[in-house]
């Protein structure tokens, strides 16, 4: 049995199943992070005082640049497939993975510095929401890395069998990756700067 429109687009909707699926998933993710951002706003409004400049801004800025770069390499990984350049695709996908890895390493330095200073989530409401938001975001980064590792490793075989489907998978991963990047673009000013 074949499910229609797994690879090709349905003419009247202009979509393949996976494309619609990933957008719906992102919609629900918007609601998840939306609820957490609302929590941040409500807690901050209700707090008698709110700490400023508690976080390492240069490190945060470096991480922002890293993620933006990784979004660019992700697009290139997809575009290379569209231009049928397999080698370039491998390079860009690996670069995206490595940039994400460096992001997480930076993040772990940041966490470790806080823990050394005794700044655990229970310390204050600010740190509580900081750890929750960045922790959940970190899990999303990790999830993306697992998918990329799969598409770089065992999942890459699909390219030989069905290049169009493989290109679609890279595209959907990219959409997810841009979303994770976008969440950070909001997190950085909200937590580090404001």
């Amino acid at each position: 049995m074949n499910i229609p429109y797994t690879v090709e687009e349905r003419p009247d909707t202009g979509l393949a199943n996976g494309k619609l699926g990933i957008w719906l998933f992102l919609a629900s993710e918007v609601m998840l992070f939306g609820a957490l951002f609302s929590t941040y706003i409500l807690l901050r409004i209700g707090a008698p005082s709110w700490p400023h400049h508690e976080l390492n801004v240069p490190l945060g800025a470096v991480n922002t640049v890293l993620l933006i770069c990784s979004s660019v390499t992700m697009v290139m990984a997809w575009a290379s497939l569209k231009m049928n350049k397999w080698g370039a695709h491998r390079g860009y996908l690996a670069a995206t993975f490595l940039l994400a890895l460096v992001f997480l390493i930076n993040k772990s330095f940041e966490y470790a510095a806080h823990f050394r200073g005794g700044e655990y989530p229970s310390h204050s409401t600010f740190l509580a929401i900081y750890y929750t938001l960045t922790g959940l975001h970190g899990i999303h980064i990790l999830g993306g890395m697992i998918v990329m590792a799969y598409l770089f490793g065992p999942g890459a075989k699909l390219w030989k069998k069905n290049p169009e489907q493989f290109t679609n998978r890279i595209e959907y991963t990219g959409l997810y990756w841009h979303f994770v990047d976008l969440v950070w673009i909001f997190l950085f000013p909200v937590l580090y700067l404001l």
Partner: protein
Amino acid sequence: MDNATTSGTVAHGHGHAHEHEHGHEELSFIWKYVFSQDHKVIGIQYAITGLLFLLFGFCLMMLMRWQLAYPGAPIPIIGGLLSQTNAPGGIMLPEFYNQLGAMHGTIMVFLGVVPLAVGGFGNFVMPLQIGAPDMAFPKINMMSYWVYFIGGVIMVGSFFLPAGAAQSGWTSYPPLAVITTPGLLGGQTWWLIGMVFLITSSLLGSLNFIVTIVQLRAKGLSWMRLPFFVWAQFVTSFLLLLAFPPLEAAGVLQLMDRLAGTSFFMPSGLVTGGKVLEVAGNGNPLLWQHLFWFLAHPEVYVLILPAMGIVGEIIANNTRKPLWGYRAMVYSVAFLGFMSFIVWAHHMFMTGMGTTMSAFFQTTTMIISIPSVVILTALLLSLWGASIRFTTPMLFALAFLPMFGIGGLTGLPLGLAPPDIHLHDTYYVIGHFHYVVAPGTIFALFAGIYHWFPKATGRKMNEMLGKIHFWGSFVCINIVFMPMFIQGLGGMNRRMYDGGMQYAHNAGLLKYNIVIGMAAWTLGLFQIPFIFNFFASIKWGALVDKNPWEATTLEWSAPSPPGHGNFVTEPIVYRGPYEYSVPGSLRDFTPQFESEKA
């Protein structure tokens, strides 16, 4: 299901229901029935698991009803089986009563009704009704069921924790939920972990439903030719997709509060047991309520919309008439879905959130009642002038109309802040929402089981047993819930484990608890014919062909039961979903799948 085909390409089948056919890829038992990717098997898995949870949740309630009817009396028969920590000598402790209450609500809503209505009926019927070979993502569909199953195991397993299951109500309001039985072994922690699984499951399911409905509709099946049931599932899926994530966020925050010592929901200076609680403070308990009800109000419509969908199908089929005002119903259901996102705080009039907020949410609540009334009116008017077939599914569907009507109308005073403040913490609220969900939704689900059972098994359920089940349940369930309005209007509080014996104003109201208890246990007895009928009919029910109800929608063009891949030939749709009694036609039904003058 013994003759379900596993043929890789259904075009090879002959479509006869009882022809055992060996396809190209015969699957082993475990892949065919346990880790199946076939939407029909998954639907049946969901339905049976959901029914078992409904029975389990109902048993919890029957225990609670004993305690309310005869406070402090040892529970007969099974009292000795309960552990000494919960019910020493068979006498229920308040903590155990609270566990039963919290878990009754959780199990009924998240493990019983939604999995049956959406996971069961949605999975089984919807792809057939749109003429799809399966769901868009069969593997994700399988994962959705198993994630739900794990969530259910965690929830039920939490009864065996040292301090028992969650006991802070199905709404889990902090600070109570955070400070009760703290730590990793507290029931509340496992409630939250279980919820994360259930939310993940519904995310996977709803995403799949939407993609399937948008992408896999058969040729000719335009949006306004979709059966109303499909529309109801479509809107429901959007509610699940978008409303559940905020509860997931809230669940994560409450887990942080319980395990990492944060104070998202813990205000400063909270005193428990004579001691100031040592937390950072500055948290906001109302935040939980906002996040919770942002899910849980759309959840009400997740409970009711699939039921309306089922009732719509069955009424059209048994009145032999088109649904009255199909388009109005479709627009109403979409509007209902949208509005359900902006009425949540009408559950919070008691919290002192302010008159501006109350005014806004009162207004939206009054507005949302309009589309509900439109749908109910359309269903009612569909009966006008019809020669109705009083089959068992039709009886349940007909009973849905007044029962949901009572539930809806008694909800109106609760949507307005002034009467709500009087009624909110009383049995009136229990009566109100149970009328919507129990004789409303659950009756519709029973109707659906009797209606689609022939499609799933190739056999009909017994009508006589079905009618005993219906009339017994109908009478008992009204005796259960009707007195609650009287109790509630009298001011009887809904959270007391002994019914509130110490209050003078309850003196004349407590006697109803005995009546309610009797009716609840009798209601339990009347489910026995159903359970027997369900299993016996799988083996001995009257054999049927493709279309035993002479219905018009696409699922009745597939063999009963349909093989893997559903249709023998790719279905093409020629007309709207409810072309019954078309003037000039030879028969009183013209199916969607038959071309002109077929």
